[in-house]
């Protein structure tokens, strides 16, 4: 039984996340992303490694998509519609609702750039029809054995971490997640579980981030300054996620500062996205959720649809436009118009792919940007770089790993040098095995396995009954009584040919076999001289009616430092060991030398079962030593009690 992780994408890199995990033979594909940085075959994960014959339906049990970002879902329409995968696909409701927007947006950009179309709009719709939407914490039975379950991951709307278990083996794939809540999303949440493997992203493997509020303030200040000077603000952004977060931020700020400057959303696409956010408000943070009844937080008051005619209209405004990296489309068009003016402001996302205008603007402070051979644009406007990121930082990753304490950790979705550092930290600080396989590499782990057996009721009941041990510190009279549950589950495992393994209580075994118990007992009757007893109990001869119980309890006191015997009337007992005063002169346990009757003293008869052999001999030797300390002629000195 084993778990194998085959990394097809995002191994020691960011982009085209795709991990194939096989748990005890069942294979699950986690994410099916594409790489934004490539336009050739490297754009997609190498699916041929899943199945040589390209029979993906039998090779995979299911596909799980964690969220709607293209580097996690971008290759899905290609895989289902072009490669022909027809099996189950799972994602959360918001992901299912929003993914088509992302994919279509991307497809349009690709076509707009004149690249070869990888899949059509119909492909996207057909692909989404195969998707089963799941709710958070909803436990989905993929097949008879395989269970999956999503947990809130923050990051973007509908992002989820997925738990998968088969038999006793269990693992979690995080996708991208955020351990701190932001404007509109909550922090990732997961239950504590027994895991064999945790596959986690490690985008910020070494970064520790400070509070976000400072950076938010900075952003708002820059925007406010610009509009109050009559400038226009261009916020190039992707339709989903960041746009809504910034919009909540701005809408809120506008409200507080009583600003009247219009905020525009560029295309119908983004407005449409807001509608989804409104309906799916249950997937946002608690704070936002609580507002739904009075005013849905995504019902932006100051936000309007942008009309192309407003492009060169005078007066300040704020505009959200797609795509995010100014790689083309409307945001580039707006950029052309607004960049030459010093009063205007352009905010850039935290990360831009090389080759885009955004990337050019980020590197240094260019005054001119070449769009193509013929067009060159003067850049005089101000540039503000956003550094919000919905990814967890190193502390968050460490916290999650520590919280889940899996047997193994696999790092993906990060940069190699940083991952190495994090890997070392996880190994040294948490003592957990950690791996960072490269693309197309496989790592294997043994999986947890439990042996199954049928347990009888008596056994279960006996093990569920607490066995209290009362420990009292005798030294301190006022010490509180310490109660401990000293229960140990004990039973008997029986294996009969051709039958399931059974666990029975000890008493049931004999009934099952059909025999009776045979006791093996030990007996020993020995004498202690009266003179030595006198040392223990000086009044022994004065007590006319011999008080045996008194004698026994005095002896018990003497022994109490060494062994704790329980004083029952007429005998001292512990476990199966029993000591009493013997008056039977022909006691069978009496050894020959002692049974002549002439002996002046008292006979003590002991019996015990072999379970308490050691203890019994110890008690006996203690009693005898008490005797021998005065009478050195005793024939059997037990000097070394413990062998």
């Amino acid at each position: 039984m084993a778990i194998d992780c085959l990394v097809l994408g995002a191994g020691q890199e960011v982009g085209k996340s795709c991990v194939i995990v096989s748990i005890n033979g069942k294979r699950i594909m986690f994410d099916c992303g594409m790489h934004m940085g490539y336009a050739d075959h490297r754009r997609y994960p190498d699916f041929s490694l899943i199945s040589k014959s390209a029979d993906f339906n039998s090779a995979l049990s299911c596909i799980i998509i964690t969220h709607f970002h293209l580097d996690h879902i971008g290759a899905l329409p290609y895989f289902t519609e072009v490669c022909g995968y027809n099996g189950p696909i799972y994602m959360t409701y918001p992901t299912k609702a929003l993914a088509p927007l992302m994919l279509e947006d991307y497809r349009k950009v690709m076509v707009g750039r004149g690249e070869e179309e990888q899949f059509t709009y119909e492909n996207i719709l057909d692909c989404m029809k195969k998707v089963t939407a799941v709710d958070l914490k909803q436990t989905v039975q993929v097949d008879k054995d395989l269970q999956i379950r999503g947990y809130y991951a923050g990051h973007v709307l509908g992002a989820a971490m997925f738990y998968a278990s088969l038999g006793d083996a269990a693992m979690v794939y995080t996708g991208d997640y955020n351990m701190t809540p932001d404007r509109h999303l909550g922090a990732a949440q997961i239950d504590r579980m027994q895991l064999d493997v945790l596959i986690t992203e490690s985008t910020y493997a070494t970064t520790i981030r400070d509070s976000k509020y400072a950076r938010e303030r900075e952003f708002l200040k820059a925007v406010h300054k610009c509009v109050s000077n009559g400038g226009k603000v261009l916020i190039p952004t992707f339709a989903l996620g960041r746009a809504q977060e910034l919009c909540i931020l701005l809408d809120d700020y506008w409200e507080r500062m009583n600003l009247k400057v219009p905020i525009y959303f560029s295309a119908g696409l983004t407005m449409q996205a807001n509608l989804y956010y409104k309906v799916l408000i249950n997937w946002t943070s608690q704070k936002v959720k609580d507002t739904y009844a009075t005013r849905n937080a995504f019902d932006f008051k100051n936000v309007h649809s942008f009309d192309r005619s407003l492009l060169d209209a005078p007066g300040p405004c704020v505009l959200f436009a797609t795509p995010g990296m100014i790689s083309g489309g409307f945001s580039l068009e707006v950029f052309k118009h607004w960049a030459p003016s010093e009063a205007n402001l352009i905010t850039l996302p935290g990360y831009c792919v090389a080759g885009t205008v955004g990337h050019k603007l980020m590197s240094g402070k260019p005054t001119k940007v070449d769009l193509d051979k013929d067009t060159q644009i003067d850049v005089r406007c101000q540039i503000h770089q956003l550094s919000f990121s919905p990814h967890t930082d190193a502390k968050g990753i460490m916290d999650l790993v520590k919280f889940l304490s899996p047997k193994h950790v696999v790092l993906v979705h990060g940069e190699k040098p940083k991952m190495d550092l994090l890997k070392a930290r996880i190994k040294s600080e948490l003592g957990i095995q950690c791996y960072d396989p490269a693309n197309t590499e496989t790592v294997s782990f043994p999986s947890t396995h439990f042996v199954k057996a049928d347990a009888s009721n008596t056994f279960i009941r006996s093990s569920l009954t607490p066995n209290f041990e009362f420990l009292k510190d005798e030294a301190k009279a006022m010490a509180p009584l310490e109660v401990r549950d000293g229960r140990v589950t004990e039973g008997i495992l029986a294996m009969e040919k051709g039958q399931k393994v059974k666990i029975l209580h000890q008493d049931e075994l004999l009934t099952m076999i059909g025999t009776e118990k045979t006791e093996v007992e030990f007996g020993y009757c020995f004498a202690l001289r009266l003179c030595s007893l006198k040392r223990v109990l000086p009044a022994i001869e004065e007590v006319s009616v011999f008080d045996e119980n008194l004698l026994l309890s005095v002896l018990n006191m003497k022994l109490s430092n060494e062994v704790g015997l329980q004083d029952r009337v007429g005998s001292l007992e512990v476990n199966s060991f029993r000591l009493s005063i013997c008056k039977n002169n022909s006691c069978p346990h009496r050894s020959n030398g002692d049974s002549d009757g002439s002996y002046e003293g008292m006979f003590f008869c002991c019996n015990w079962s072999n379970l308490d052999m050691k203890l019994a001999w110890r008690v006996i030797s203690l009693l005898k030593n008490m005797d021998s300390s005065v009478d050195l002629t005793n024939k059997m000195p037990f000097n070394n009690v413990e062998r």
Partner: protein
Amino acid sequence: MVNLCGFHILFDCPLDLSALTIFSPISTSLYEHTSAAPSSDSLDTPVVGAMLETEKLLDRTNLIPAEPYYKTVERLHLWNASLIDVVLISSPMGMLGLPFLTRTDGFSAKIYATEATARLGQFMMEDLVAMHMEFKQFYGPNETSFLQLFKWEELEALPPALKEIILGKDGTELGSWMPLYSAADVRDCLRKVQTLKYAEEACYNGTLIIKAFSSGLEIGSCNWSLKGPKRNISYISSSVFSSGVAMDFNFQAHLGSDVLIYSDFASWNGTNCVGDENSCSSLVTGGDCSITGDNEYTRELNADSLLNFDESSEEMEKLNFICSCSMNSVKAGGSVLIPIGRLGIVLQLLELFALHIDSSDVKVPIFIISSVAEELLAYTSILPEWLCKHRQEKLYSGKPVFGHEELIKEKKIHIFPTVHSHELLMMWQEPCIVVCPHWSLRLGPVVHLLQRWHADPNSLLVLEEGIDTDLALLPYKPIAMKVLECSFLSGIKLEKVPPLLKMLQPKLILLPDHTKPYFAPLSESLPCLFYLEDETLRLPNSNNLSELHIATDLASQLTWSKMKNNELTISRLTGELFVDNGKRYLLAEKRPMPYEIRPLVHWGKVDLESLLLALEKIGVKGSIEKVKSDDGYGSNVLNVFEPGKALIQVKETSIVISTSDKSLASLVSDAVHTLLDGI
């Protein structure tokens, strides 16, 4: 109430709202153009006279003019609330009685409900409390219970229909009447509810895994699946195979359970109880209406037929019929009053009304009057996860899941908290269509509007079938307005039950007793047991064994010993037992295993000769002696004299070794062990 694995589980805690009808509604002078104000007469209602005078047995003066009390589940109050471990709420209706329970001293049970159920239930309870305030204001804050108003004789003299409601058929239900809880009780109650999603696994006490699966009746309503270490139980409440609003009945999830408790008997309008081991309770499905067996479907009994037949299309026809009737009334200048408590139906009606109004040339406003309507409607538009497929498709294609949101924006629907709201009075125009909560026609806006319209022959009242209409409408008589009674699907149709049960293949089915005539003939193919209200039913114990998971490291440490002349291999097993997620695990102990492992239990026979031989092998010598011991039973004795003295007595079931020599004792016992089986 079910006892499973030692836990007491209560399913649902509703209110019997139909019992509200015994109270007279409050009247306000505003609408008081009827001859006599129903309730303002006096408190000492002349009961007997009314009975003699009229043909009818009941007159509105018979109704009890007092602050209403509420009827909870019969005999639940006899239960010690602190003995309940788990409460499972399947629908918002099943939650209305919950605050009575949660405010009881010593109540500490864990309450589970789906997120949507809890929220919708909260809206209903808040509305109930708010509506009840009207009564409070009317009757003043005095604390007397309505029961105290009556002497026993007066109670006896009540018309039989009322008496039955108050006392129950056998006169035992008097104790289930309670004064209404407060808003604070509702809040407290909700704080104690643990909300779940569909198919979310909740683990109670590490032993029971509780899962809710959609039942299709209402948004968020569910059936339950309970999984303990020993058996799985499915609890099926009122379910609808395909609903126009809520997520469809997920019956596949209940496949192959050990026990299936079937308590969806809308067709019996039933109050049911379920018992197992030593517990009982009853469930009152409050406002459920009945389905008339209009069609006979003799279809192939398989899963597809259950699904294929589109129940929702039939429902749509009914709704369309309501709409067209309403439109006719409006055209005739009358208003339409729709007091319906079922959210799903209201939502569908709103959409249909908008269509009907658009297609006709009449412009008529729709008013929704309820203290929680605004929040409620806002809430319905943010729970796509709980809705049926075609509503979810709307989400994916970017349309709003319900039409009402837009209709409100377009000012076709207006929402008001109460009939007195200033905005309502400003907007008010007749004819109009009013949608408001039902509350047995005794609480809230419906009262005022009925008083206003009951004499108008053009107006229309749309009622859900199932309640005692006569009694409900009593205070508003004589009634001139049209009354349309309609039944909505509120459970599985009877003819679909056997195929469903056959398909789910439970090992045992529990059905309410009154269904015996129907199901007893089928018992050959369906393993059924019938339960009675208030009675305990003990289930046969199916399986004495339960599964235990042993950690591999522990399993590999085991030392096996093969039994003599037997095919059995046994091993002593020591570890720590954990119960987690309904599974039992045995893990290796943290403390080191004791080095010395001696058998603790022995069985088998020892005869002296072989013992003597065995002893000689290890250098112990002795001789056999026959002794007659004191007790009369002969026992064989073996005297050992080398290397030390010892006496070994061999009896039927015991062997006693007496010696003063410690090492000799262990030598002898070793020899004995080789002859015995032991562990």
